[in-house]
């Protein structure tokens, strides 16, 4: 079987190759083929990882000097999700990104972002985690500022400042961990922290939480997200909202859950999650700008996922991960369609889309379906995932859990209203009726994303068999 | 009234006429100075209701159309519309000398001089204006006529409608009363459908 190291090497190689060839066609082909190949790689590794995690020996250097990497079920799952999403998004970008001069560089940076994403999932070494985290942030800054407009530059600057604050906190946490464990491997650190004094571990855990938390858009520190997602090109906002912040969330939660297991951080996470849900929904309610509204919606959805994961039960973890899958599909679809709405009407305000539903019927229908699933209307996939989360929360019981359920339910009410306000504007009386449908590649990618969301329920039986081992990847680190 | 008309009445007609005469409802077309004579006839001093006579508001419900004074050309149009809206058998009672021969307005260019050229008048009450006693006696004689079945002036309007129509056109030209009088006559069997 091909070594999982390819996850890191292949995109890097593709990136440099593209820069070297510097031809749009080649760049596009490379950036389509690499993630597709990795997706197949992930699928090939999945059955093995379901049995037990596969450690990867890098250049035959043993610990403690070597960099411990390992591919477990969760890693494989996330890898497949990332790869498939990026294939579709690159397909969308081919018709969305105008044939500008440095388009090749766009694809190169995307490839680097992919590398860091796969790296984050595989690494078992805390410093290695820091390195991949830094690559991820930097490539995000570049991509957010892609349109070189005033708003984009300002947004990426804000994103960079917060990202760097996060990195410093992460470094502090790594320093504390290294002092305690003497080794950078997560397994050793975990053992060290068990015996370390409580205050010491709490400081490390909190700094780590808010270090990586910035990228995972955890509530108080995610204020960069609305500006970044709304001024980034839609394909990039789809990548960011689609799997980057979810990936960071999963990684944060996994490390907190295993390395800093000594500290019971779950109640704190629940409080943060519920706050995130409420703030996200209420701010999205008053929005006039479509992409900004979707960005706030991502904040609340992240809150829901974090709430599910932080319930502590396996049912909660499984529900959270399946919701993550649904959200990746639905939110990406919404962002990509929003991209074309902006492209066609040249405006980002919802009120300017009157009658667009008649001029772009297919995309408006897909927008409706994605919104329906996000809100959780049966028989779409979103209903089952949201129901599982609430059922898991009800199972754990307790005042905080029921308050969480209440806030999620009221959040859904707000979400339904502001999403369907857009649909009412779309299907209002149109000025003129000339068809301006999306281009074919974009339409194909959005259709596939929406297909995942609409027919997700059919995946449920197969998903429930795999979700077990994937979920306990969150609790154990091998 | 043709002699033949009187003798043909069956016993049932006689009984009916005697019952019908006990209830007469009046519609006053209060013009000129006659209207003021009616309140005393209706109230407690003379009490017209003893004879079953009651003032009514709309032409549909009235039997007697009481013209209580002079009629100008303009108001005659309204009177004819009201007369045609009444349900037969109906009786026009001219009140005071103005309806008989123009009264003190005999030389006016706008008042009509003889009511019976335009409407079939059942009875005139002479006087400028007749006192309540005269009104009561007039109505009593009308009741007797109805009882004996002689009060058939309303058929006259159908039988020689051309005469009345000619006079009306002479005075104020054609008006639209939504009534086809000859057709009504044939429909209700008053004109024996021969003309």
């Amino acid at each position, binding site marked *: 079987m091909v070594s999982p190291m390819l996850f890191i090497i292949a995109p890097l190689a593709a990136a440099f190759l593209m820069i070297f060839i510097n031809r749009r066609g080649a760049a596009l082909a490379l950036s389509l083929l690499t993630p597709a190949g990795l997706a197949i790689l992930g699928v090939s590794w999945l059955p093995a990882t379901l049995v037990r995690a596969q450690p990867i020996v890098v250049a035959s250097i043993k610990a403690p000097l070597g960099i411990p990497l390992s591919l477990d079920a969760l890693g494989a799952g996330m890898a497949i999700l990332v790869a498939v999403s990026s294939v579709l998004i690159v397909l969308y970008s081919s018709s969305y990104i105008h044939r500008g001069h440095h388009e090749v560089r766009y694809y190169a940076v995307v490839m680097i972002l992919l590398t860091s994403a796969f790296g984050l999932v595989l690494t078992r070494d805390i410093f290695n985690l820091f390195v991949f985290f830094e690559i991820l942030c930097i490539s995000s800054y570049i991509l957010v500022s892609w349109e070189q407009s005033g708003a984009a530059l300002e947004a990426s*600057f*804000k994103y960079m*400042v*917060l990202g760097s*604050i996060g990195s410093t906190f992460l470094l502090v946490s790594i320093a504390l961990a290294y002092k305690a464990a003497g080794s950078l491997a997560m397994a050793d650190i975990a053992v060290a922290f068990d015996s370390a004094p409580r205050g010491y571990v*709490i*400081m490390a*855990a*909190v*700094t780590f939480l*808010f270090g990586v938390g*910035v990228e995972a858009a955890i509530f*108080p*520190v995610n*204020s*960069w997200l609305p500006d970044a997602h709304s001024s980034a090109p839609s394909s990039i906002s789809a990548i960011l909202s689609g799997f980057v912040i979810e990936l960071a969330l999963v990684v944060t939660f996994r490390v907190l859950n295993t390395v800093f297991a000594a*500290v019971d951080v779950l*109640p704190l996470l629940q*409080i943060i999650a519920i706050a995130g849900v409420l*703030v996200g929904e*209420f*701010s999205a*309610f*008053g929005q006039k700008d479509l992409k900004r509204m979707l960005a706030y919606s991502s904040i609340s959805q992240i809150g829901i996922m974090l709430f599910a994961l932080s319930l502590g039960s396996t049912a909660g973890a499984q529900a959270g991960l399946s919701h993550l899958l649904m959200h990746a599909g639905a939110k990406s679809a919404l962002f990509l369609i929003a991209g074309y709405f902006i492209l066609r009407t040249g405006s980002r305000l919802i009120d300017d889309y009157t009658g667009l539903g008649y001029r772009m019927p297919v995309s408006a229908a897909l927008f409706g379906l994605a919104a*329906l699933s996000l809100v959780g*209307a*049966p*028989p779409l996939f979103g*209903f*089952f995932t949201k*129901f*599982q989360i*609430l059922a898991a929360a*009800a199972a754990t019981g307790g005042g905080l859990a029921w308050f969480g*359920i*209440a806030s999620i*339910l*009221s959040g*859904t*009410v*707000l979400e339904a*209203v502001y999403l*369907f*306000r857009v649909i*009412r504007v779309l*299907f*209002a*009386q149109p000025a003129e009726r000339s068809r301006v449908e999306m281009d074919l590649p974009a339409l194909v990618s959005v259709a596939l994303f929406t297909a995942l969301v609409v027919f997700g329920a059919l995946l449920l039986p197969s998903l429930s068999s795999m979700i077990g081992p994937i979920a306990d990847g969150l609790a154990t680190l091998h | 009234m043709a002699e033949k008309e009187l003798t043909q009445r069956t016993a049932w007609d006689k009984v009916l006429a005697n019952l019908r005469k006990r209830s007469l409802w009046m519609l006053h077309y209060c013009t000129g100075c006659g209207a003021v004579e009616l309140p005393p006839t209706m109230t407690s001093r003379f009490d017209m209701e003893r004879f079953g006579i009651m003032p009514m508001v*709309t032409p*549909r419900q009235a039997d007697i159309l009481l013209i209580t004074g002079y009629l100008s050309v303009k108001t005659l149009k*309204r009177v004819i*519309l009201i007369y045609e*809206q009444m349900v037969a058998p109906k009786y026009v009672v001219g009140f005071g000398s103005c309806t008989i021969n123009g009264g003190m307005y005999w030389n006016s260019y706008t008042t009509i001089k003889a009511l019976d050229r335009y409407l079939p008048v059942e009875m005139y009450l002479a006087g400028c204006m007749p006192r309540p006693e005269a009104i009561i006696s007039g109505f009593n004689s009308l009741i007797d006529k109805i009882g004996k079945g002689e009060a058939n002036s309303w058929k006259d309007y159908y039988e020689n409608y051309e005469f009345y129509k000619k006079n009306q056109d002479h005075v104020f030209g054609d008006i*639209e*009363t*939504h*009534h086809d009088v000859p057709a*009504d006559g044939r*429909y*209700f069997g008053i004109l024996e459908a021969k003309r």
Partner: protein
Amino acid sequence: MYTQALLALPLVGFVVTIVLQGTARRSPAILKTWALLAFVAMAAVATLAFPEIGDTYTGPMVFGSSLSIGLTDLSWWFVMMIAGITVLTSFFTLGALRDTGTYPMYYGWLFLKVFGMLGLVMSRDLLTFFIMWEIMSWATYFVMQQGKEEGREAALGYLVYAIVAGMVLLGGVLFIHQSAGSFEFAVITAYMAKAEFGILLASVLLVLVPFLIEAAVYPAHGWLPSAYASSETSMTAYLSSISTRMGLFGLILFVFSVFGLKAIDRIGISAHLNLRTILLVLAALTAVLPTYTALFQHDAKRLLTWHSIGQGGYMLLGLATASTLGTAGGLMHIFNYMTYVALIIFSIAAVEYRTGTTNLNKLGGLIVKQPVAFLGMLFGIIGLAGIPPMNGFVSKWFIYRSLILGGYPFIALAAFIATVGTIMSVYKLIHNTFLGQLPERYNDVKEVGLLMQLPIWILMGVVFTTGVFPGLILQWIAKIQVGMGIVPIAWTLGGVAREAGDLNMMVVTAVFMATFAVGAIIFFIGGKRRIVSQYDNYAAGHFLNKDVPYNFNYNFYSAFDHIFEKLYHDAPVQTAIRNLGRFVRMVADYVRRFFTGQINTYAAYYVAAVIIALAILKEIP
């Protein structure tokens, strides 16, 4: 076997309609005939499914429990009503819906809505119930979009209420599942019988509130008038006849069979002051206030939608008494109301089809031009006002008798006040449309085609026969009452047997026909009569013609308007809900300011977060 087929058919219909969608523009006839055939087949399957009452069929496994559907007496009663009214509506739209081009997915969403309703009615466990409830409310939202421009605005209003109801119900489903341990109705009933008071109260409230919202009971009725009035007319007929009754179905199912009457009566202080009394008071308010709002409406459809709220109040009145006569009255009223409101709205649709407007101030005198529509509306309004010999009277008689003898005098009075209000607004409806002077512009109006007349004739027959022979309906209701755990009503073909009370509609109608004949004889004894033109009218000597508007339509009940003007314009409930909306927008605005956009505030948030997190973690051991 028929039960599954019954549920599958509308789903197939939905899919096929989407496929046929392309043809809708070229020839709408294909789509319309397909919809009609599908609905007729569905009705046939529904009748065939009668012997399968009682057994349940399990569907796919979801969250560890299998979704199960099955027919009970109550659900079969509702299934037949849904099937019947759907066939009639689709038959009516065959003629009425001229350009399905502008209503792209009219039939598609109708199929989905029927699927949702049938599923809801046939669900045998809590999870299926909730899933079908959500599908139905989403389908209703999309069906309402198919009307005029303001239909979309009103539909969003409905969506807010529906999503709130859906989420509260979801909370209820979760709470019940958590406390009772399973979604099965039987398990829940057993658990609720001996559940401690707090859990029982919470689960009952969480489940009843959404049903009251969906059934548009008094405080939560704001969404219904504009949503129903602005959708397409035959859809208004469909929605107001059966769609609002799904909330009531939920109420009946949960109060009587899932929670059980004994559990419900545990909530409350005494026999006279318990949950059912609150329901009665709400029902009385629902019956009275919307009916008197209907009085002041200028649009025929809006007037009738206010009535659908009012009549919903009557049904709830009957059901909340939980006595034999009361529940029989409530159940029968659901059927009765469905028949005569559909009849009235179909005749309004016939008038709108020809004159193009339903504005009561502009219509008049159409009895001469559209006699069949007039007859339909006449039968309908006699039923709606609840005057013998139509079926509306029978159910109202039951409700009155149970309220009076059940010891609720003032609620019975409220019910009668509502009846008087109904009679007034109903007469205004038929007077302003069909009676009075015919305006010049409607001179060339003709009667509607045979296709649109057929449903009107059928419904007239149903309204009259079930009025004269209420036994036909009461026999099903008796079966349902057994299922609901209530002493079934001693029914006879003409009404109610001797000891339970005195009503024999056959005798009442027979005597009425005899006396009517006596009236006819007296009429023909009198002299000949001739029909005259409408301008041959008493106008104090004034000459009437076609350019003299001589109609009394505007501000028909001026005395009431004069007395109740203030109360009508700023109804307390509507302002309360508007303020709530404004409060949510204000909070949203306030929260949005959290994201200031300056980087220094973000950094400050960052530091604050870390400090707070450290503090929290210090506290938790």
